């Protein structure tokens, strides 16, 4: 079985694709902000001390905390 990575494990500058969510409550919020399964996602950088994360999702820019990022499963 392949262990799936989540977004908080992405390295700075690395890209991937969103595959799903762990926590449904946060998923609602992310979905309505345009972060959908299948979206390409790139970790551009982090704020000082490694959190929050600055992401490019398709052509949009989103900031979220590491805790939320751990809820996003990557392909």
């Amino acid at each position, binding site marked *: 079985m392949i262990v799936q990575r989540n977004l908080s494990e992405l390295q700075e500058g690395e890209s991937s694709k969103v595959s799903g969510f762990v926590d449904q409550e946060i998923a609602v919020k*992310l979905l309505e902000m345009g972060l959908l399964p299948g979206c390409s996602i790139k970790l551009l950088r982090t704020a000082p001390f490694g959190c*929050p994360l600055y992401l490019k999702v398709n052509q949009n820019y*989103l900031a979220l905390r590491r805790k939320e990022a751990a809820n996003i499963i990557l392909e």
Partner: protein
Amino acid sequence: MEISTSSKQINISLIGNPNSGKTSVFNRLTGLNQRVGNFPGVTVDKKSASLHLSDGRKATLIDLPGTYSLYPTSMDERVVLDVLLDTKSKYYPEVVVCVVDATNLERHLLLLSQVKDLGIPVVLGLNMVDLADKNGVEVDLAFLQKSLQVPVVKINGRTGKGISELLDKVEDVLYQPSQEFMPLDALASPVIEEVKKSMLVKNDYQALLLAHHHQRLHYLTEAEKQQLIQTTEKHAFQSIRLQVEETMQRYAKITPMVELALKKSMSAEEDTFTDKLDKVLTHKLWGSLIFFSILFVVFQAIFAWAEYPMNLIDDIFSALSAYFTSVLPEGVVASLLTEGIIPGIGGVVIFIPQIAILFGFIALLEEVGYMARAVFLSDNLMRKFGLNGRSMVSLFSGAACAIPAVMSTRTISNWKERLITIFVTPFISCSARIPVYTVLVAFVVPAEKFWGVFELQGLVVLGLYILGVVGALGSAYVMKKILKTGESSFFVMELPVYKTPQWKNTLITIWEKVKTFVVEAGKVILVISIVLWVLATYGPGDAMDKVAEQVKAHPEYSQLPKEELDNLIASKQLEVSYAGIFGKAIEPAIKPLGYDWKMGIALLTSFAAREVFVGTMATIYSIGSEEEDRVIEKIRKERNPETGELVYNAATAMSLLVFYVFAMQCMSTLAVVQRETKSWAWPALQLVYMTAVAYLSALLTFNIMS
């Protein structure tokens, strides 16, 4: 039927995602002709304006807060739901204008699809088409219009293009209910059916949203809520799961539609302007340094630019008082006007320059898109103190005035984080503390340069600001440890692309903030000014007259010129007035801090506005004018009548400064906190807590220094 619908007031609601350019569109449609009020039951600002449709009918345009969907998480967003669900409300829209960002079509159409399912007629205003063009994306308007079944108008909030067309389309769709975007009964049909029966709603989506949100809707009665709780429990309604399902189903329809509607002539740029700029502005080191530099520049500007208009306002109000003193016959009316009302109004107006400058900067930073970056950079630090990145904006605003700052916390969705932000914001030194700092710092600190560059006095003032920030963050940390909440805190924020600012938007924001301050703070300050005037003008029995007679009859004073004699009488009279009695009554309590009863009076009057301190000291020390230099000169010489020691020494002044940094001396803020938290417990606790911190810190300072 025709008559009843056409005679009804027409409401048009403007909705859209945050950063959709909705505010620009609203400002385009209305200009300064906006009214700011409150939605019933909540304190979220309701901006509205009257419009005329082309056939002459009057309509009210209501700007609703930006939201991503009808599943709100913050107080601001909840208002949208309240307005769109309550069909009997007087704000219920006949038409919704949905502003959509053409560069972000997929996400923005989610909200539109939800509004459509509520059956409300919708017009789509397609904004930022020029930006999409620049990215090489062309939107097929006809296709979009056909597949969505709503009129689509290309608009440009920046130039005003298409805005009048938008209104024409509004008339076209009036009283023509929207077609359903997608069938919903498959999601939760038993619940939907039961809610439709019990609540008498006709529409599936209304029923579904009622099932989701009943606990938080303001307009429902207790009985209706109970009924809905019963229904949802009976059918084991899984709110979160259904929200995800509904959203996914919507996207399943929107995504292919958008793909067909967009014609891409070139692939999207890898490194956009925003990407390049953010490499520096959100860089761990450079970004943080730039952020602090911006803060520094803003505060420099407040001091440098506001001084001139503030002096001017001060002069005007002094001249007004002097004028009325000279023309009015001496008596109660003249005294109330020249010593109560005019200085009271002046005390409000004097802060306008500083507030306007600070909010001008904040609005500008918001306009260009920088504020979200500042929030991004500070979230981690803020979170350590139980706050949220967004709290930074409130704390920043608090440096101008705590009232709009407390109101700006409405965007923080987590209740605990919001409450802590509200609680600690008044610790940030606001503009009303500056006059007090100026007088007292000038008294204790010599006007010398430090290393030849830094003004020593300026450094001390900076230290006082930092002390305020320490007080705010320290208190936040304590509250974080004490307050318990089950609510999860999350932080998901959009970083909008950078844009050139729209000056009109910035100016309107400044205008609104200043108006909020004048209305909210103004009325309280004015009332307290009058009450204080009464307390300082009247004393028990004929004590006031007696004192005046005594001074006049005293041989030692008979040689004094008239002006000095008058000032002396005023000073002696204040001593026996109700205010003087109060000052003496609290003297035992403030003695350990190094204060006497005279300062007690000044502490009391500071409740109207902190800067009243200077004026009160001027009266107590029988200085006719409020010239700061003379106040300083006078208090420097003041000696204790019993011990003969100087009353004001460095220790007293420092203790007083520290007291003013921490003390909650603003009734207007307490009133606003009450409204925002919907409880008297929080402002009461805030008053007690801040006074305690102020008292203990002042006590400590006095004892260390003396």
